[in-house]
């Protein structure tokens, strides 16, 4: 990676952080409805992972999808507009926070039912295998999704058919308020791959460079025909599960401990330690990120609601 790439990834992470902070504010002002699941603390996971995909590689994720959308190249404008339910949102205001997508950027959504997108990811990879495309599907899901039947059906079928999928478990330690070891028979999620004869790795998700290195290696193996693999990425969400989370299930000390391992701070230190860029240059990226988000807020707030007749469009392709 050259300097400009480092600065780009650093800025992406900061954009996600500022966008999420702003979303929380807008939610509290009643401008965002429904559920809102923030990605704060997990930025290095999707930023690292998606930075090594090729344009033909498909990305699909669960409902904590704002950061993933930004990393896939959606603009902060269309993400925030979707959160505000506006016509200019990436899903026309009909999807909301949990249903961001842009298929032209190979981002296949934001899916709100825990685990349900895993079988769909199997199908995406099947489509590429069937059509002879050299593409890899990156399917992201939380630790909680590995306890539901969909997970097991999907990864079994992907292995039986040797499909090009990287199963990426974002282990943020809690499925809503239930700790991994209270819900999963094994707390090292990557062990679950062994039951399907699938290679698996674990990596520190607070370290962007570590995520990148491991993901790049696995994606290229899969592209060359190795069959599916699983990557468990250890991370932590600094905020609650969603905006209405009283956080009775974890202690403030634990949260503070993880916050000291802020993925943005770790990456910033790496860039400085390696002499890639100066503190002033990174501060400039911080300012740019602020500006991107401020512009997105202005854009989203000024955007129109969907026209009333949009209620009836896209129920079917052929009416």
């Amino acid at each position, binding site marked *: 990676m050259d300097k400009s790439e480092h600065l780009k990834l650093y800025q992406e992470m900061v954009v996600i952080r500022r966008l999420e902070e702003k979303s929380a504010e807008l939610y509290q002002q009643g401008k965002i409805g429904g559920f809102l699941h923030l990605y704060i603390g997990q930025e290095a996971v999707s930023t690292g992972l998606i930075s090594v995909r090729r344009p033909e590689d498909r990305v699909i994720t669960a409902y904590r999808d704002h950061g993933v959308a930004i990393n896939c190249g959606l603009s902060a404008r269309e993400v925030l507009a979707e959160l505000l339910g506006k016509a200019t949102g990436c*899903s*026309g*205001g*009909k*999807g909301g926070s949990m*249903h961001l*997508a*842009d*298929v032209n950027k190979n981002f*296949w*959504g934001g*899916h709100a*039912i825990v685990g*349900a997108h*895993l*079988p*769909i*990811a*199997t*199908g*995406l*990879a*099947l*489509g*590429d295998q*069937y*059509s002879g495309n050299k593409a890899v599907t990156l399917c992201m899901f939380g630790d909680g999704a590995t306890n539901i*039947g*969909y997970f097991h*059906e*999907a990864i*079994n*079928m992907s292995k*039986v*058919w040797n499909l090009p999928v990287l199963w990426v478990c974002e282990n943020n330690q809690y499925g809503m308020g239930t700790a991994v070891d209270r819900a999963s028979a094994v707390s090292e999620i990557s062990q679950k791959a062994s039951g399907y004869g699938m290679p698996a790795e674990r990596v520190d998700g607070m370290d962007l460079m570590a995520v990148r290195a491991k993901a790049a290696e696995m994606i290229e193996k899969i592209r060359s025909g190795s069959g599916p693999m699983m990557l468990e990425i250890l991370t932590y969400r600094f905020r609650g599960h969603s905006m209405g989370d009283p956080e009775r299930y974890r202690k403030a000390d634990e949260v503070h401990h993880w916050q000291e391992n802020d993925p943005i701070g770790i990456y910033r230190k790496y860039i400085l330690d390696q002499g890639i860029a100066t503190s002033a240059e990174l501060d400039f990226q911080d300012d740019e990120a602020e500006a991107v988000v401020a512009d997105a807020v202005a854009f989203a707030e000024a955007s129109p609601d969907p026209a009333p007749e949009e209620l009836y*469009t*896209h*129920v*079917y*392709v*052929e009416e």
Partner: protein
Amino acid sequence: MARITMREAISQALWEEMEKDPKVFILGEEVGVWGGTYAVTKGFYDHFGGDRVRDTPIAETAIIGGAIGAALTGLRPVAELMTINFAFSAFDHIVNQAAKMHYMFNGQMVLPMVIRAVGGGGRQLGATHSQTPDAIFAHFPGLKVVAPGTPADAKGLLKAAIRSDDPVMFIEHATLYQMRGEVPDGDYVVPIGKSTVQRPGRDITLVTYSKMLEVSLKAADQLAKDGIDVEIVDLRSLRPLDMDPVVESFKKTNRAVIVEEGWKSYGVGSEVAARLYEQAFDYADAPIKRIAQTEVPLPYNRALEQSALPNVDTVIAGVKEVLNG
């Protein structure tokens, strides 16, 4: 035009569409090496190969979820559920994913996929394997639901379903596979969402579909001997539901009976009757009658099971009740 069975008609539609379009492929339990549990895909595996006739694990969410994903990439999967009773294992993927993704992502995602599922009672398979839950699937906007009652409609509707860019539930009835009928050769397509008059008549309108079309036609033949001239409208598609031929017939006969194999409560008959009252209340000369399955889980015992299903006698009795009431 050839006289063939419903099984052959379905098989023909699949075969011809697969020959025509390399994007069409089949996946499901025992569809390949076995040749299909009901032998619909017999010979397909040898001809088209295992990539296009894919045997799956017994994993309904992976079958339907897999079909959704493949459809998103532009393929045209035909997913077979060994029976519609197993659709409940994949319910989330059918009604919560397939039915909603086009809308929820504002038209970005297109799902040209077919779910073939066979249902129906009367084969002593017990309560879990004998259901006719068609109305449940027809409840969800975003899905199209078709259920043919003749071999010709089976061929024509399946071709339309495979070519449709929307997800379509194609519901077959297990006791109709041996039914014979005239089926046009070659590229015969029946549009989805068009009801049709299967038997013209003057005295009363019988609205039905799938297996109950066969039962209703037999009942109509017997009623004709008593001088009762029954008009039969075959819905063929449950969603979208085409009420025009139903309303037109009702305005002529002023009396209607709806016959379905599923349970009466919240069913197809309830929907059709409500729409008739909404659209043609002033034309009613008698209350509309619904004939449906007795509201119990179907028992194994043959006599008990048969007594719970609508048959020629119950249809005749229902028609006479409405005419004489």
